[in-house]
Structure formats: C-alpha cells, structure tokens
C-alpha cells in the first residue's frame, strides 16, 4: 500500500465519527455473522447439542447435498469458461467492426436485469411445448427437417371399416386387393390442423395395370356423412404411405396424392393386402425435455452464459484496447495469419485479464441461487440443486436445520476465500502500478 499524505491536525475522535456508521454496520451484519455461523455450524438442528464437525460430514454424506456439490463443480467448471470464451471471441471480432458498440450493447444488456427476470425469460425459452418454448420449436424444426414428421398423428380407421390393427401402430386391410376394384380406406380421428388445407377426396377410378384406392377423412363437418362413402365435402389425406404386403413382405408402396388417391402397380400388388404403416400415425416429435432431471443444470447454465458473456466481453475488450497495436501489426507484416496473431500474441497478452474474468465469474457462480430457484421446475429441482439453494432450503425451507445451513454457509465462504485471494492480490498489484 502506498503511503499517502495525511492531513495533519485532526483529532482521533473526528476520525471515529467518520468511521463509526460503517464499522457498526460491518461489525454487526457482516463480521459478527461469520463468527456466529462458524459457531452455530458446530451444533445440531435444535442448537443445543454440540456435534463438532458432524454437520460438515453431512455435507458429503447427504444425497441432496452431494448432488448440490456435484452440480456446483459442473457450474464452476463450465459456466465461467464458456462465458469467458464467448466474451473473448466477441471482443476480438467486434474490435474492428464499425457498429461493434451496438453489438456489445446487445450482449451486455442482460447484465442490467435481475436474475429473476432472466429466469422468467428462460422458463419461457425452455418451455416443453414446441408451440410455446422457442428452444424446442427450433429443435423440433431441425429434427423434422431431417426426419419427416408423421402426416397424420393419431389417426385411425373408421370402426367397422375393412382395416385392422397389424401391430406397432400400423393398419392393414383384411381382404386382398384386386386391380379392377378401387379400395376405400376411411380414416377418422385426424387432427384439425393436419387437414386444414387439404383438398376434397376423390374416388379413385379403376385403372388398367394398377391397384388404386383413396385414403380420406371419412367425416363430414356438420354431420350427414355416410360411413365408408366418400361424401361431397370430405377431405383427402395426402402424403400418406400405402404399402402392398404379400406374405409378410412389402412388395410395393405408394404415397397418396393431393386428392387422397394412390396407385400401385398391379403386377406386384394384385392379391396383396394393403397396409398403412405406423410411420403415418406416430405421435409428433415433441422436442427435448430441457428442464427435465437430465438437462436442467446445463439448461440453467445456458441462461447464465446469456447473462454474463457480456460481462466477460466488455472486460476483455477493455484489456484488448491496452494491447500494443505495433505488436500485432508487426506480426501481420511478418506474414502471420489472423489465427496465429490471435493465438500467439493476443491471447497471451490478454492472459491476466482472462484470469480476472474467470476468477470473478467463479466467485459469482459458487453463490449461484436465483436462476436455479426460478428456472428449475418442482419436478427437477432436486437434480438442479446447488449449494446456495440447499443453504436456503436448510435455513428457511420446509425442514429447517440451522446447524447444517450454517455449515454450508461456512463451506461456501471457505470455497470463495482462495479465489478471492487471487483477485485481491491482482487488485493490489494493479494499484501499485
């Protein structure tokens, strides 16, 4: 610490007056609680029985707390490094972009809002229903691009039609088909939205050399439709796969046209039975259960990165502004590519800043509470548990054990200490410069 001037001529009691409010508050609400917590952590839930380090032992034996510890490790390893990496990438990329400021503003903005608001925002993002949660909407969209979604999930044959279940969700005609005799395959229980734009069904005419037929929604809106007859307004089911099966083998297959008709080559399909495979009717892919027990912690870490990558970016950008230009230019003139300049010069020069960012985020992440508390739904809150949340539950939740709560608090303090030491030493070094 640098020796600074002191103004002479002040009496000590004046200093006392200036310091008193701060020292009283700090003493009563910050320093004393540390002592009390350490003391209290040595006693049982009631506070009467001395248990020594028993509560600390429980930290490592209780299943719920072990999950919390494990999750905290995941948090501390993943969240700061991902945030810092993204921050570094963004800072370097925006450095030479004209509207870099606008970009930084966008990425940094989440820092200003509360973790509660961020939690609500991400509850919505991760909503299971692909029609509400954007994460699953995108996921399902991508999935369905590569795997065709079933055209008519949940549809089934009209009762008493010549179609029976053939296992695995498929349906098969009971009688064999012949070329001269168009088949009618009436289905019901089709979802409204699947036939909203469908055309009217057309009866398939007999065609030489082909087994023909129609698949349609045998249901007339407003009533009046006759079963097993293609009535005027009834809708075609287009894009449905129809297979001809002989002796358990698929010999031909076709897809229904816009008017619901299909045609199979008679040479192969004559005398076969027709099957509507299960793929036509499978329940729609519903996306990933982001907030289920498996993915809840990574999902919440995602929301944290959304909030804090901007912090890393801005700190790193500030450090980047201090990197001597000449060095980079010299390297470029010497023929180093951008990637080499980045790896060999920029990153090493930024190392001190990167350490600061990582360390600061680690301290922050060790105490993570709000995001987990808000985002994890009741069903997976146990899987998402973290120390600060466990501390809250043990201290003020349903089954209170203040001894255990205090032990977790002291444990948190011990975890933060070494990280903070690194940070404070850095601050002091910076001061000295």
């Amino acid at each position: 610490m640098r020796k600074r001037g002191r103004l002479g001529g002040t009496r000590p009691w004046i200093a006392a007056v200036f310091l008193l409010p701060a020292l009283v508050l700090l003493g009563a609400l910050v320093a004393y609680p540390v002592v009390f917590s350490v003391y209290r952590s040595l006693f049982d839930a009631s506070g009467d029985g001395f248990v020594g380090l028993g509560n600390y032992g429980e930290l490592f034996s209780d299943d719920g707390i072990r999950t919390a510890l494990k999750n905290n490790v995941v948090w501390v390893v993943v969240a700061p490094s991902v945030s810092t990496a993204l921050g570094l990438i963004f800072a370097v990329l925006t450095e030479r972009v004209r509207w870099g400021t606008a970009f930084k503003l966008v990425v940094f903005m989440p820092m200003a809002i509360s973790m509660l608001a961020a939690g609500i925002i991400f509850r919505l993002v991760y909503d299971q229903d692909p029609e509400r949660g954007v994460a699953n909407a995108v996921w399902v969209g991508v999935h369905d691009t590569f795997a065709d979604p079933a055209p008519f999930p949940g549809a089934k044959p009209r009762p008493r039609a010549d179609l029976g279940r053939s296992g695995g969700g498929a349906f098969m005609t009971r009688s064999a088909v012949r070329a001269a005799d168009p088949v009618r395959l009436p289905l019901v229980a089709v979802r409204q939205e699947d036939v909203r734009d469908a055309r009217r069904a057309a009866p398939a005419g007999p065609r030489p050399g082909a087994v023909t037929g129609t698949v349609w929604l045998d249901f007339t809106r407003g009533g009046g439709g006759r079963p097993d007859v293609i009535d005027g307004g009834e809708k075609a089911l287009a894009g449905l796969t129809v297979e001809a099966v002989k002796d358990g083998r698929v010999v031909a297959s076709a897809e229904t046209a816009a008017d619901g008709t299909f045609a199979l080559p008679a040479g192969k399909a004559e005398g076969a039975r027709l099957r509507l495979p299960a793929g036509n009717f499978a329940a729609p892919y519903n996306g990933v259960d982001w907030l289920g027990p498996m993915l809840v912690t990574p999902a919440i870490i995602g929301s944290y990165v959304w909030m804090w990558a901007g912090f890393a970016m801005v700190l790193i950008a500030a450090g980047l502004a201090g990197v001597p230009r000449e060095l980079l230019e010299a390297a470029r003139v010497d023929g180093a590519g951008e990637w080499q300049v980045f790896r060999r010069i920029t990153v090493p020069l930024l190392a001190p800043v990167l350490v600061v960012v990582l360390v600061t985020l680690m301290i922050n992440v060790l105490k993570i509470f709000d995001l987990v508390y808000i985002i994890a739904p009741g069903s997976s809150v146990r899987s998402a548990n973290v120390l600060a949340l466990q501390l809250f539950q043990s201290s003020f939740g349903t089954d209170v054990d203040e001894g255990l709560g205090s032990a977790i608090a002291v444990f948190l303090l011990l975890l933060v200490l070494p990280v903070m030491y690194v940070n404070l030493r850095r601050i002091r070094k910076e001061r000295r410069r």
Partner: protein
Amino acid sequence: MTTVRGALRGGRGGRGVGAGRGSAGGSLVSRVAARTGGGALRVFLILVALFWLMPSVGLLLSSLRSPQRIGESGWWRVFGEPAQITWDNYSELLGNEKVMGSLLTTAAITVPATVLVVVIGSLAGYAFAWLDFPGRDGWFLVVVGLLVVPVQVALIPVAKLFGAVGLFETTAGVVLFHTAFGLPFAVFLLRNFFAEIPRELLEAARLDGAGELRLFSRVVMPLGGPAIASLGIFQFLWVWNDMLIALIFADSGSPPVTVALQQEVRQFGSNIDVLAPGAFVSMVVPLIVFFAFQRQFVSGVMAGAVK
C-alpha cells in the same frame, strides 16, 4: 479501473477516431483485412446479436398477447399476425395492486440502500484516505477483507439478530442488510479515489477555515463524483435486482417486485399474462439506468462484480 471506463463506447474499433488512425490503429493491413473478411463476420455478428436478443424479445412479445393466444401458440406467431398485439396485459397489470405496490416497495428499499452506502462509504473512505488515527491501514485491510464474505453466510445470523430487535421482515432491515454488504466495496473504491485528490486542495480549504465536515461535504464529495456515480449505479441495480435477501428479510405482506413475481412463478404456464408484463415492468428501471449511464454502469460492474 481507468482502463475500463468507456469500454463499451470506444473500443479502438470502428469509430476509433483520428487519433488511432494516425498512429497505429486502422493501419492499411487491418483495414484491408476488415474489408475482405467483413462480409462473413458481419453476418455472423448479426446472427449472434439476434440470438442474444431473442429470449428478451420472446418475453416482450408474450407480454403483448392475450392469455388465450399465449396458451395456444408461440410468441413468434406475432410476426405472421401483428394484429394480435394488445396492451391488455399491461392495463390489467396496472390494476394489479400486488405487483404495482411491490414496485413501490422495491423503490423504498433501493433508494435508501443506495444513498446510505454512498454516504457512509464516503465518510469512511475519506477517513481512511486523509484522517489520522492509529491503525488506519490495518483497519482498511480488515474492511476490504470483508469483501470475501458471501451474503449467504449472514442469512441465519442476521435473521436472528433482526428478529431480536424487531427488524425482521421490515423494509428498514432489508435496507440495512444491503447497506452493510455494499460497504466493503464502497469503502475500497472511494478510499482509493479520494486518495488521489491533490493534498494542496484539501490544505488550502483547511487554511480557509473549513472544518472537517465542511471539507468533506464541499470539497471531497463533489470531487468524488465519478466514483460515487459508478458506486451508486452499481449498488442501485444490485439492490433493485436482488431476490434472495428480499425473500428472507422483506415484509411478506408487501414484498418487493422480485419476490412478488417469484411467488407467481410457482404457477408458471398458467399466468404468463401476469409474469411477462410484470417482469418487463420490473426491468424498465434497470434498463433506463443501463442506457442512461452506460459508462458508469460498466465501470461499476467491472469493479464490483467480485461481490
């Protein structure tokens, strides 16, 4: 912290102004590089920015749809049918006494907690910088050392303490808690800032016959403006956005907005028409502060994020 100031505004980048260009900044090489690689980079950055905006936009658009619409389809349907946008949820919210009252409670907690930290922190910071008393630097280290204490450590002990003196579940209690935990950083920041004040200035004021208090309020505080602004904004947002401490120490009868909304989260799904606009209303003040005081906010966050 000086390196950090203006980090958002002036990277050396785009508008890096004439000064940079002449010396080393936008040399020919880097400008050429910017041209050639510019297209892909631009697209990438725009995509990232959109990606980053999307979650908030989702909440915003959700808050502007009727509960029925929210229930049946995603917020992105608004783009196909902009007519469905409605202010109904917000006008409904204005009549929701619980949420509106909670905003008042939040203000009633945040403003005093910010003012107190600034005042008490300045007093102590000044004393540590310029007053003469035994063990000064030792005490300063102790105060700064308290930065390491996580708020979680104080929850049980302070709850008991407040319970004993009748401060539990009161606004005053929450204010005191936030003030105390804001102090180590405040004292650290302000002491270092005040120490840079030229000695001559203070001595001249002293010669003019200014007493200690006068000197503090007329000379030191005004000079401390930038540091006080950073600190004040950081503390303001910290307290405004806090949920944990409010959850435990605030009056559950008239909780601050974070707690009021948190209680709504329990029925998430059925009440997005309350939650979404509520969350946005709670974000309005922080966002205004953020956009109005970017620079101070950045330097405050930089320095204070260890908390």
